[in-house]
C-alpha cells in the first residue's frame, strides 16, 4: 500500500530531488575539468530560477498528494465495506438476528421520534420564521379546581390584546379545527373547519397557491362575507384538484359560502389537527353561545386561540406585561380578570406553558421507553458480535500475525457493525412508517394528520441512531479483540480462554434483564391503573347508555321548530320505550360530559353558606332520567309526572357544600331574583362527573324538563338505556323510527362508552404500549439470554462431554445449565427492581390508585422475567445434556 502523503514530505522530496540534480551536474562538470565554483555557477544558470521552480513544483505536488489521499480513503472504505459484507455473509444466522434485533430497536425509536417530533419539535409546515410566533396563554382557576394555563380566549379579550399590541405586533385569532357537515342533500360530507381572522395568513406568512385570502373588510365582526379558503389537501381530495374551483359555492352546516382561494400545499394550519377549510371569524355557522349576547361579546364563547409575530426589536417580557395589563382591563362584555397572568408560549401548542394532555405525557414517557428498548437491542448485538468475534479469534489472530495493524482491525470490526446497523436502519424505517401511523391513530385518534410520519427529520434521526448504535455495538468486541494474545489464540482455536470476556457477556445479560424488568414493572403499573380508573364510579352508567339528538337541517333550529320537535318526541316516548333492546327512555337538556349549562343567579335558602356559593350548573331532565341514566337518588324521589309545584333535585356535592350536615329536602332555591317563588328540593342524587373521571365533585342541580323554573332555552336529547349486548342493533331501530318521523332532520346517536373513551385513553395507552414495549424488550432479552447460554454451552461441549463420560445424568446437566442461566438473570432482575424503584417517580404522576413502588407489580415483573429466562435456557440446556462423550474425548 502507498504511504500516505503529507505536506512536509512533499517539500522534502522536491528538495531532495533537486539536490541530487545539482550534485550530479556539478560532479559531471568537475569531471570535465571545471573548478567546483564554476561548475556550481554553470549548473545554476542551466537550471533557471530555482526558487520559482521549487514553488511551482510544490503547487503541483500538493495537488497530487491531496488527490491521492482522497482516492486512498475511498479505496480503503470500499475495501472495508466489501470485506465486512463478505464476513457477515459467512455467518448469515447471526447477521440476520443482529439485523432484526437492531431493526426492532431502531424501528420503535424512529416511530416514537416521528410522533414526538410532530408533537413537540417540528413547527407547523410552511410558516415563515416560526420562532418569532407567540401564542398567548392565561392562568385560570377553572371551576375552583387547580389553576392552569389556558390558551382559549373570548373575542373581547382578543380585541384588548390586539389593541395593546397595536404598532408592535400583528395579532391573529383562530379557532381550532372542528368537524362540520359540508354540502347539502341527504348525504353531507364533513370537513375540519377553522375560523380565523383575516390577519391569520398574514401573520403566518402564508401566500395562497391561487385565488386569494379574505381581507379585513370581509372579516368584519357584524356582517362578514360568506367566503372560504380551502386547503390544498381538501382541494385535491374533494374537488379533484380542479383549478376552476374559485367562485364555486360550498355549503357548510346548511349555510352557503363562496370559495375564494386555495392554501399552498402542505399548509394545514398551526395545530396537529389539519384544517380543511378556513373562513372569516365573523361568519362561523352553528356558533355556540347565548341567544341574547352576540358571540363576540359573550365571555362563554372562549375557544379562540391568539397568536402574534414578535417583531425582532420587541422584548418578550415587556410584551408579556402589556398583554397582561390589557387582559386585566378588558372592556364591556369581556371576562373581568383583575388577577390575569399572561405567558407567551411557542406556536407549538404542546410546548406549553399549559398542561399537555395525558396522551402526550404518555407519549413523552414512551420516548424514553423506546430508547430503553434500543439499549436492550444494542446489548444483544454486542453479545452476538462478541460471540462471533470469539469464533473468529483464529482468523483475527492470523490476520494480526500477518501484520494487519490493530487500528485497521478495529476499523474493520466497527465497519461490520455499522454495516449491520445500516441494513437494520433501512428495515427499521419500513417498520417506522407503519408503526408511526399506528402509534398516531392509537395515541391521538381524533387528529387528522397533515403529513405522513416519514419526514426527513425522522430519516436523519434513524440514520444517526443507527450509526451511533453500530459504532457502540462494534466497539466492545473490537476493543476486546485488540487484547487478543496471539500465541494463545492460535493455540486455543475457537475455544475461549480468558474469563473476563464471559464476564462481559454476563454483564450484558444482566443489563438486558434489568431494563426489561423495569419496563415490565411499568406495564404492570399501567395495567393496574387502568383497571383502577375503570373501577372508578362516574355516577352514571357507561356501557349501556346512548343519546340521540334530532336537529332540523340547515343551521340552528328556531325556538318554534325546537319546541315542535320536543313535543313530538314526548309523544313518541311510549313507542321508543317498546322498541326491542330499549330498556328505559327519558329526555335531558344536555347529555352528560358534552358540556355545561349555567343558570342565572340563584338564591339557596340555607342557615349558613359555608363555602362560596357553587356555580349555577344545571341539567333539565324528564321524570325517569335518573332511572335511565343510572344516576342514583340517595334521598327523596324524582320529579312528578304532572306539572304542579316547582321542584328541584340537587346532587350530593351541592347538598354538602350548601347544607353541610343538614337535610336539604324541603328547602327552597329561588332562581333569578331573591324574592322569586320557592322551588322546593325534593331529592338528592349521587354526584356524577361533569367532564373528567378525576375531578373535584361538582355541585349541580337537576330541574324538571316539563316544568322549568328558568327562562333559559333548553335543547333536548333522548336518553336511552339499552341492552348492552344489542347496542348497535337497538340504536339502528331507534334511528329508523326517528328518521321516519322526522324526514327533514339530522339524527345523531352518541354512546356514553365512546364519550368516556378519551377519559380512559391515557391509561389505556400506557397499559397497552408499556405492555407492548415491555413484551418486545423481554423478547429481545430472551434472544440475548438464549444466544449467550447456547454460546456458553457450545464452548463447554467438551466439559459436558467429559462429565457425561464420568457418569453425570442428563438431568443434572440440564439443571446446571438452567441454574447458571437463571442465576445471571436473577441478578439482573434484582438490579431491575432497584432501577424500577429509582425511576418510579417518572411515571408516578401518570398512574392512578397504585404507587409506582407497588410490591405486587415489582414481584410480578421479576417473576415473569425469570420464567422467560428459564424458557430461553431450555433448548441450550437440552443440547448440553446430549453432549457426546466420545466426541469430547476424541477432541482432547
Amino acid at each position: 500500500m502507498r504511504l500516505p502523503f503529507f505536506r512536509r514530505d512533499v517539500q522534502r522530496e522536491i528538495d531532495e530531488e533537486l539536490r541530487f540534480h545539482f550534485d550530479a551536474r556539478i560532479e559531471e562538470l568537475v569531471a570535465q575539468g571545471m573548478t567546483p565554483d564554476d561548475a556550481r555557477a554553470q549548473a545554476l544558470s542551466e537550471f533557471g530560477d530555482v526558487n520559482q521552480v521549487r514553488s511551482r513544483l510544490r503547487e503541483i505536488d500538493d495537488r497530487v498528494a491531496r488527490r491521492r489521499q482522497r482516492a486512498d480513503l475511498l479505496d480503503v472504505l470500499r475495501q472495508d465495506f466489501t470485506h465486512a459484507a463478505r464476513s457477515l455473509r459467512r455467518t448469515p444466522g447471526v447477521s440476520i438476528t443482529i439485523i432484526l434485533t437492531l431493526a426492532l430497536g431502531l424501528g420503535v425509536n424512529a416511530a416514537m421520534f416521528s410522533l414526538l417530533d410532530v408533537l413537540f419539535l417540528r413547527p407547523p409546515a410552511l410558516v415563515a420564521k416560526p420562532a418569532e410566533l407567540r401564542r398567548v396563554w392565561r392562568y385560570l382557576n377553572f371551576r375552583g379546581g387547580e389553576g392552569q394555563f389556558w390558551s382559549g380566549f373570548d373575542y373581547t379579550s382578543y380585541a384588548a390584546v390586539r389593541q395593546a399590541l397595536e404598532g408592535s405586533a400583528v395579532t391573529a385569532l383562530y379557532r381550532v379545527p372542528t368537524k362540520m357537515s359540508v354540502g347539502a342533500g341527504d348525504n353531507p360530507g364533513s370537513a375540519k373547519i377553522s375560523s380565523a381572522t383575516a390577519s391569520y395568513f398574514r401573520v403566518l406568512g402564508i401566500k395562497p397557491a391561487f385565488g386569494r385570502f379574505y381581507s379585513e373588510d370581509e372579516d368584519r365582526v357584524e356582517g362578514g362575507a360568506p367566503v372560504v379558503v380551502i386547503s390544498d389537501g381538501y382541494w385535491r381530495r374533494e374537488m379533484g384538484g380542479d383549478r376552476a374551483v374559485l367562485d364555486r359555492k360550498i355549503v357548510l352546516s346548511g349555510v352557503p359560502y363562496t370559495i375564494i382561494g386555495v392554501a399552498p400545499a402542505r399548509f394545514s394550519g398551526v395545530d396537529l389537527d389539519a384544517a380543511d377549510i378556513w373562513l372569516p371569524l365573523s361568519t362561523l355557522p352553528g356558533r355556540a353561545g347565548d341567544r341574547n349576547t352576540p358571540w363576540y361579546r359573550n365571555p362563554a364563547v372562549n375557544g379562540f386561540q391568539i397568536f402574534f409575530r414578535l417583531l425582532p426589536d420587541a422584548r418578550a417580557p415587556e410584551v408579556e406585561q402589556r398583554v397582561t395589563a390589557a387582559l386585566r382591563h378588558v372592556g364591556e362584555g369581556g371576562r373581568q380578570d383583575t388577577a390575569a397572568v399572561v405567558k407567551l408560549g411557542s406556536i407549538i401548542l404542546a410546548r406549553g406553558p399549559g398542561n399537555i394532555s395525558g396522551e402526550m405525557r404518555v407519549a413523552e414517557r414512551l420516548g424514553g421507553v423506546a430508547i430503553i428498548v434500543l439499549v436492550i437491542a444494542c446489548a444483544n448485538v454486542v453479545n452476538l458480535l462478541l460471540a462471533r468475534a470469539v469464533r473468529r479469534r483464529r482468523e483475527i489472530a492470523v490476520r494480526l500475525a500477518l501484520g494487519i495493524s490493530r487500528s485497521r482491525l478495529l476499523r474493520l470490526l466497527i465497519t461490520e457493525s455499522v454495516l449491520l446497523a445500516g441494513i437494520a436502519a433501512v428495515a427499521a424505517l419500513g417498520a417506522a412508517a407503519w408503526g408511526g401511523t399506528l402509534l398516531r391513530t392509537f395515541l391521538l385518534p381524533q387528529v387528522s394528520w397533515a403529513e405522513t410520519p416519514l419526514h426527513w427529520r425522522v430519516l436523519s434521526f434513524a440514520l444517526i441512531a443507527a450509526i451511533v448504535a453500530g459504532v457502540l455495538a462494534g466497539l466492545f468486541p473490537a476493543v476486546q479483540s485488540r487484547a487478543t494474545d496471539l500465541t494463545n489464540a492460535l493455540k486455543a482455536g475457537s475455544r475461549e480462554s480468558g474469563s473476563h470476556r464471559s464476564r462481559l457477556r454476563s454483564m450484558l445479560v444482566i443489563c438486558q434483564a434489568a431494563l426489561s424488568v423495569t419496563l415490565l414493572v411499568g406495564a404492570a403499573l399501567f395495567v393496574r391503573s387502568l383497571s383502577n380508573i375503570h373501577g372508578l364510579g362516574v355516577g352514571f352508567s357507561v356501557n349501556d347508555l346512548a343519546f340521540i339528538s334530532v336537529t332540523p337541517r340547515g343551521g340552528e333550529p328556531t325556538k318554534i321548530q325546537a319546541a315542535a320537535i320536543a313535543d313530538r318526541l314526548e309523544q313518541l316516548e311510549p313507542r321508543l320505550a317498546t322498541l326491542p333492546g330499549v330498556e328505559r327512555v327519558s329526555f335531558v337538556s344536555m347529555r352528560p360530559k358534552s358540556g355545561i349549562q349555567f343558570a342565572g343567579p340563584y338564591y339557596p335558602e340555607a342557615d349558613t353558606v359555608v363555602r362560596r356559593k357553587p356555580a349555577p350548573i344545571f341539567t333539565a331532565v324528564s321524570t325517569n332520567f335518573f332511572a335511565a341514566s343510572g344516576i342514583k337518588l340517595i334521598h327523596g324521589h324524582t320529579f312528578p309526572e304532572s306539572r304542579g309545584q316547582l321542584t328541584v333535585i340537587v346532587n350530593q356535592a351541592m347538598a354538602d357544600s350548601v347544607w353541610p350536615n343538614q337535610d336539604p329536602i324541603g328547602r327552597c332555591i329561588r332562581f333569578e331574583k331573591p324574592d322569586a317563588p320557592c322551588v322546593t328540593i325534593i331529592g338528592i342524587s349521587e354526584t356524577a362527573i361533569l367532564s373528567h373521571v378525576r375531578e373535584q365533585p361538582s355541585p349541580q342541580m337537576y330541574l324538571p324538563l316539563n316544568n322549568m323554573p328558568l327562562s333559559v332555552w333548553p335543547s333536548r336529547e333522548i336518553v336511552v338505556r339499552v341492552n348492552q349486548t344489542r347496542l348497535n342493533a337497538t340504536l339502528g331501530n331507534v334511528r329508523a323510527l326517528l328518521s321516519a318521523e322526522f324526514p327533514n332532520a339530522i339524527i345523531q346517536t352518541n354512546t356514553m362508552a365512546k364519550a368516556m373513551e378519551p377519559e380512559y385513553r391515557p391509561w389505556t395507552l400506557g397499559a397497552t404500549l408499556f405492555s407492548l414495549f415491555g413484551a418486545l424488550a423481554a423478547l429481545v432479552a430472551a434472544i440475548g439470554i438464549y444466544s449467550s447460554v447456547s454460546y456458553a454451552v457450545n464452548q463447554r461441549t467438551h466439559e459436558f462431554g467429559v462429565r457425561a463420560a464420568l457418569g453425570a445424568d442428563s438431568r443434572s446437566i440440564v439443571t446446571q445449565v438452567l441454574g447458571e442461566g437463571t442465576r445471571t438473570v436473577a441478578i439482573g432482575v434484582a438490579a431491575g427492581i432497584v432501577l424500577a424503584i429509582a425511576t418510579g417517580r417518572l411515571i408516578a404522576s401518570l398512574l392512578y390508585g397504585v404507587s409506582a413502588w407497588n410490591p405486587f407489580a415489582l414481584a410480578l415483573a421479576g417473576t415473569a422475567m425469570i420464567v422467560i429466562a428459564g424458557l430461553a435456557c431450555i433448548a441450550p440446556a437440552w443440547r448440553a445434556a446430549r453432549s457426546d462423550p466420545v466426541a469430547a474425548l476424541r477432541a482432547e
Partner: protein
Amino acid sequence: MTRELDLLQGTLDVLVLRALSWGPMHGYAVARFIRQGSTGTFKVLDGALYTSLHRMEERGWVESEWGISETKKRAKFYRLTAGGRRALRAETDSWNDYVAAVGRVMTAAPEPAVETA
C-alpha cells in the same frame, strides 16, 4: 486553444516522454539525454524540465518512485505509464505533422500576385 499552440508549449513534454521511452530514469538523466540529443542546437532550462516531469505526473503520464542511482545515491526515478505512452505517440505524430508543415512552408515559392481589372 488551437492545436499548433499546444504543440509549441508541449515540445518539452514530447522530449521528456521520448527520453523516458527508453526506460525509467531520474530527472538528471532526462536532462542529460536532452542536452546530448540537441547537441547545443537549443537550450532547455533544467527547471522547466522538472516542472514538465511533475506536471506529467499529475496528468498521469509518468509515475515516480525513489530508487538508487548509478552513483549509489537516492534519486527519484520516472517511468512512462500506459497513458504516457499513448500521449507520446499522439504528440510524436502531431510533432511530425508540424515539422512537415513548417518544412513545406519553408520550401514553397510564393505564388505571383494576380492583378485584377
